[in-house]
């Protein structure tokens, strides 16, 4: 059946391809067929009337499988179908047992009938032998020529035959008694050692003797008395057989239970935690198994129950000690973990102290330091879990601060690098929270706030850079500075107009969001060079400051 199932699956896959739901459905169909076939085989062995419980359960499971299939629950359906098949196999085996027992009973009945039939033949033979002898005697007596000796011989033969007939008649109830005694022995071999069995055997031997020596009345009496005794013996054997079977099963189950408990105790390291109890339980189990092997079932059960009590105690002790040990190990682990977490955080915070992190991410860095202090307090108060969690929080703040700082630093470096590539930019430098782009030269004509055409590509390039996604969140401040030549008030107004010009250029055509831009005209108030030749050219400049933090 299974072969065809697999063949069906392969054929299905060949035709419809190989996807998981299809495999499931085909396998389910095969499993359902197997279960159906097993139930059919059970029915053919008359499992329904012989073992209704198992047969009914198999059918029910198959129905559940069909219900689950209808609901689309393929795995559950397959599970039910598999169980149905297994239960049907149990039903098949049990039906086989019933049928075998029935056949044995029928055959024994037939054997008994044959014995009676053979004894009937023997009795008939004895009767005919008697008739023949009588006829021979009558003939001899009627014959004048016969001698007296022949007549006496025939008379003796008739007497012998009568005796044989009577013997054959008495052998029938004797055989019954013998069969019943043998049946008792078959049921319960140990009955051989009982006084009742011995008495029955003596009585049977006595019957044989009485029949043999022709003491038929006495034999008949003895048979009548022995019948009651043998019947009791047979009933006793049956009862003891049943009791023994029950005791044997009880002992098996008790032993199996002990084995399970001992196995569980081993899992909890009973050898370490409760060695003497563990060894005692094993020794008791060994006794129980020995008693079972020797056929001392009641004793085996008692030993097994004793072993079970000891094994229970062993398991309880082992579980408690193992639990304590695990709890202690857990406590040690968490204590170490908490101390380690707090220490590591402290070292990490200290390691960042001289970096840009405290300045660039002061808030997150402060939170990390507070968390470290709180974790330290929790550790002192032996609140280890709190210490671990708080240290983890602090670590999280610090990691975020470091990551953010690294990101900003990286962006600033990128901005500096690309800005340095712009033509006519004279200086690009990284400040604490910003990047400075400085432009010298004749950006504007003398006294004018109009951008010189030669600088338009420079500002266009800068606008393109500042529009980039990487830098678009940063604000831009445009500062215009003049030299100290001329009137300071005029210089300030002119520088304001020039700063606005750059700002407006960045708005249009530069396409930079106006909200990002501020402009300041600072005139001659913030010179960068105060002495030496060329200082006026150095101070006359446009500064573009991109705030990164």
């Amino acid at each position, binding site marked *: 059946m299974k072969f065809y199932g697999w063949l069906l699956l392969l054929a299905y896959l060949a035709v419809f391809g190989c996807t998981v739901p299809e495999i499931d459905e085909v396998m389910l169909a095969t499993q359902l067929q197997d279960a159906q076939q097993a139930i059919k085989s059970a029915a053919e062995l008359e499992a329904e009337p012989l073992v209704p419980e198992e047969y009914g359960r198999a059918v029910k499971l198959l129905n559940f499988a069909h219900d689950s299939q209808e609901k689309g629950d393929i795995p559950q359906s397959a599970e039910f179908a598999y169980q149905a098949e297994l239960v049907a196999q149990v039903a098949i085996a049990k039906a086989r047992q019933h049928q075998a027992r029935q056949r044995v009973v029928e055959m024994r009945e037939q054997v008994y009938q*044959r014995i009676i039939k053979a004894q009937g033949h023997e009795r008939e033979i004895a009767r005919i032998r008697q008739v023949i002898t009588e006829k021979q005697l009558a003939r001899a007596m009627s014959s004048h020529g016969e001698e007296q000796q022949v007549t006496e011989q025939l008379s003796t033969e008739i007497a012998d035959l009568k005796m044989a007939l009577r013997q054959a008649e008495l052998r029938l109830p004797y055989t019954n008694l013998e069969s019943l005694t043998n049946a008792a022995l078959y049921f319960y071999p140990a009955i051989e050692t009982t006084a009742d069995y011995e008495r029955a055997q003596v009585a049977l031997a006595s019957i044989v003797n009485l029949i043999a020596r022709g003491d038929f009345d006495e034999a008949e009496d003895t048979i009548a008395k022995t019948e009651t005794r043998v019947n009791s013996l047979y009933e006793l054997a049956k009862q003891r057989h049943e009791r023994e079977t029950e005791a044997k099963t009880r002992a098996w189950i008790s032993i199996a239970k002990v084995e399970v408990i001992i196995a569980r105790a081993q899992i909890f390291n009973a050898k370490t935690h409760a060695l003497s109890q563990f060894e005692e339980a094993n020794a008791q189990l060994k006794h129980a198994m020995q008693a079972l092997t020797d056929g001392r079932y009641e004793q085996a059960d008692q030993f097994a129950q004793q072993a079970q009590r000891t094994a229970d105690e062993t398991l309880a002790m082992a579980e*408690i000690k193992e639990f304590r040990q695990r709890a202690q190990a857990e406590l040690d682990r968490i204590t170490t973990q908490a101390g380690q977490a707090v220490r590591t955080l402290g070292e990490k915070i200290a390691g960042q102290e001289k970096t840009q992190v405290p300045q660039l991410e002061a808030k997150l860095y402060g939170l990390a330091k507070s968390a470290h202090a709180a974790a330290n307090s929790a550790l002192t108060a032996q609140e280890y879990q709190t210490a671990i969690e708080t240290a983890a929080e602090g670590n999280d703040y610090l990691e975020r601060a470091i990551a953010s700082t690294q990101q900003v630093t990286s962006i600033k470096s990128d901005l500096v690098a690309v800005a340095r590539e712009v033509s006519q930019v004279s200086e690009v430098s990284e400040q604490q929270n910003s990047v400075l782009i400085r432009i010298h030269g004749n950006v504007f004509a003398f006294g004018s706030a109009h951008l010189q055409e030669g600088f338009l590509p420079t500002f266009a390039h800068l606008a393109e850079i500042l529009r980039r996604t990487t830098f678009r969140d940063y604000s831009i401040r445009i500062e215009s500075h003049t030299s100290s030549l001329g009137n300071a008030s005029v210089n300030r107004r002119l520088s304001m107009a020039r700063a606005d010009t750059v700002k407006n250029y960045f708005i249009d055509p530069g396409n930079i969001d106006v909200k990002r831009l501020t402009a300041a005209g600072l005139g001659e108030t913030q010179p960068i060079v105060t002495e030496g030749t060329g200082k006026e050219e150095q101070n006359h400049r446009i500064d573009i400051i991109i705030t990164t933090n």
Partner: protein
Amino acid sequence: MVKLTLYLFIFGMFVGCGGQLQQLAVETMENAQIALTSANAMGADAAAVTSLRTAEGMLASAGNALNAGDAEQAYRLALRAYLHARIATEIAIAVREEARVGEAQEQLTTSEQRVSEALQRLEAIKAELEALEKL
């Protein structure tokens, strides 16, 4: 009672919320182990070796599943192991009962021979009687 409560407490601490299913799996594994012991005692090792080995294999897999934390799979496998062990037990008993049929068949053959022999002797003596009556 105190011991039982202690067991349950400790067991609960170990297994947490999934305890019920785990307990069911453990109990089913115990039942399967008992069924296996019975099968061995019934002589399934000789009479139903395939079912017995399948049951043992499935019980071992159930143990592995339980150790891996999959109590549901452990329960399913333990249930299968139990059923295979039951099959092994029942097959072993069936084989034993069927052997008794063979013994009974031998006894029947012997008794039929006895009847046949007695019948032959009966026929012979009947013939002897008829011969005597004809004289």
